[in-house]
């Protein structure tokens, strides 16, 4: 039988001694990069990362006690970035639909073909690829951050890299 009592998570181990300020200075630039890679939109990445940090600050009393507060803020950043990318895509589609024919240029592909290929990946694959290339995260760490099993994380990363290689017209080098 599962216990249903209201209990606090066990925070006795690995308490973080970070102040929020130190945490922010260390993690915010990294979150901007993660947000840019996952949302595919550098212009909104700083706001997305800031939003994640505001949420971290709001719950800092709780999050600072977590064993890995960095994992929490990465997860929030990725969630916000995936939502934002969907929202931006929908908005663009709406603008194109509303516009008079010929008045709005078609969306331009990113200059860099790599970012164009990354943008085409499904969300979880995009997140796994970003954590792998940006932060050199291991499979276990990616699994922890995305709250999936290591096996699933491995599949997401493998498929993401394979898709990138295919899109870029070259064989994957695992």
């Amino acid at each position, binding site marked *: 039988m599962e216990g*249903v009592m209201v209990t606090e998570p066990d925070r006795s181990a690995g308490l973080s001694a970070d102040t929020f300020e130190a945490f922010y200075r260390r993690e915010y630039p990294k979150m901007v990069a993660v947000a840019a890679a996952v949302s595919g939109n550098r212009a909104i990445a700083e706001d997305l990362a800031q939003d994640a940090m505001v949420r971290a600050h709001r719950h800092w009393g709780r999050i600072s006690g977590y064993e890995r507060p960095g994992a929490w803020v990465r997860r929030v950043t990725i969630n916000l970035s995936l939502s934002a990318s969907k929202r931006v895509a929908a908005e663009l589609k709406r603008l194109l639909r509303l516009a008079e024919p010929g008045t709005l240029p078609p969306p331009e592909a990113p200059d860099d073909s790599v970012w164009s290929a990354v943008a085409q990946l499904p969300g979880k694959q995009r997140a796994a690829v970003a954590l792998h290339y940006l932060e050199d995260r291991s499979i276990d760490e990616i699994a922890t951050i995305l709250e999936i099993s290591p096996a699933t994380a491995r599949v997401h990363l493998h498929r993401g890299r394979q898709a990138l290689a295919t899109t870029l017209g070259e064989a994957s080098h695992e």
Partner: protein
Amino acid sequence: MSDRRIRTAFEHLQDDVATNVPTAGRLARILKESRRLPRASLAFLGGAAVVLVAGAIVFLLRPGGQSVPPVAETASTSSTASTSTTSASTTTEVGATSLPDLLPGMVLVANPSLDSDVVTSGPATVGVAADRAVSDGKGGFFVQRGNTVSWVHANASAESLLSLEDLGAIDPTGLRLEGATRNTFGTTNSLVLIIAGGEGEQRYEEVWFYDVDARSSRKGVYHTGAYEGSISRASVERGVLVVTRRAEGFTWFEFYTAAGRPLDVKNPKSMDETLPVYVDQGVLSPDGTTLVFLESNFAASVDGGWPMDLVVWNLADGTKTRRVSFDLGDWTVDHMDYDGLNFVVGRQRWRTDGLEDGAPLLGTLDEDVQGPTELDLSGWPSLVRDDGK
């Protein structure tokens, strides 16, 4: 080769961020906001929210010896508590502070992480620094913190009511405040509690009542033993007890009198039904005639989303009278409350480090179904009710 190209692109992104992203300004903005307001986290609780602080309640809401959030730089005046002790309870008068008006239809949101004991967010939400909080129908509320329950009266005086150890349960391990009922056992106020106890094969959960007027508890009227699953919700109104049960993937409702005898009513999902339908959070209307619950068909889940129907069930004739659909995404339902018109759904989701509380959803079941809309505060929600309902 492609791997090198990809790495190079990501390295360029990192260089761009390292060169062009200012950190200090944005950090200063967060810190400045928190210093400007009376209590650190209130800046994020809901825009232009009015903030009230019932400072001295801290003596009862926060158990002694446990960590207390830092006091804000401009904290409100803290009164000296005058304490009188009776055999049953302790009363602490709270000086010049006061509670916000708790009007029917408003929502109490309990969140132990709040830096202030009581805050208001917008016109209809009151946050309470506790694990759970339910209205007393008289302008105050009952709060659970850890395994203790206190009563914060409308005049902001606070009184400790019970602790788990005092109830007389066998080998108790935890309690859960489910709600307050005002028409059971002839009392003005009874608290509905779920008590867990035992270990291994001795584990159990029971529904208990605490008579607020008499300051006495009634032994469990409903009991589940080890391997019999758990109680996900207990609701009591007008002498009717509905227990929502969960065991090995199955969920169902059981109906009893408040004294614990089985009640013969048309059940929207009983234990012997094996439909692939998940039900949860059976809540009675204040008049005891209607059951509101959540229903979801697992097969309907798309892309990890969780379509959920709120069903209104007429207990008299066993018919579904209303159905409202919404999508919970990756959230699960923590708690639902219903006051006969409004409903509020609390949400949680599992994270590696534990449960994350979400912002509750508030809706109205009038002729034009409203919402549900997301509240500004995250936490465990309950609706404020009228006295006597």
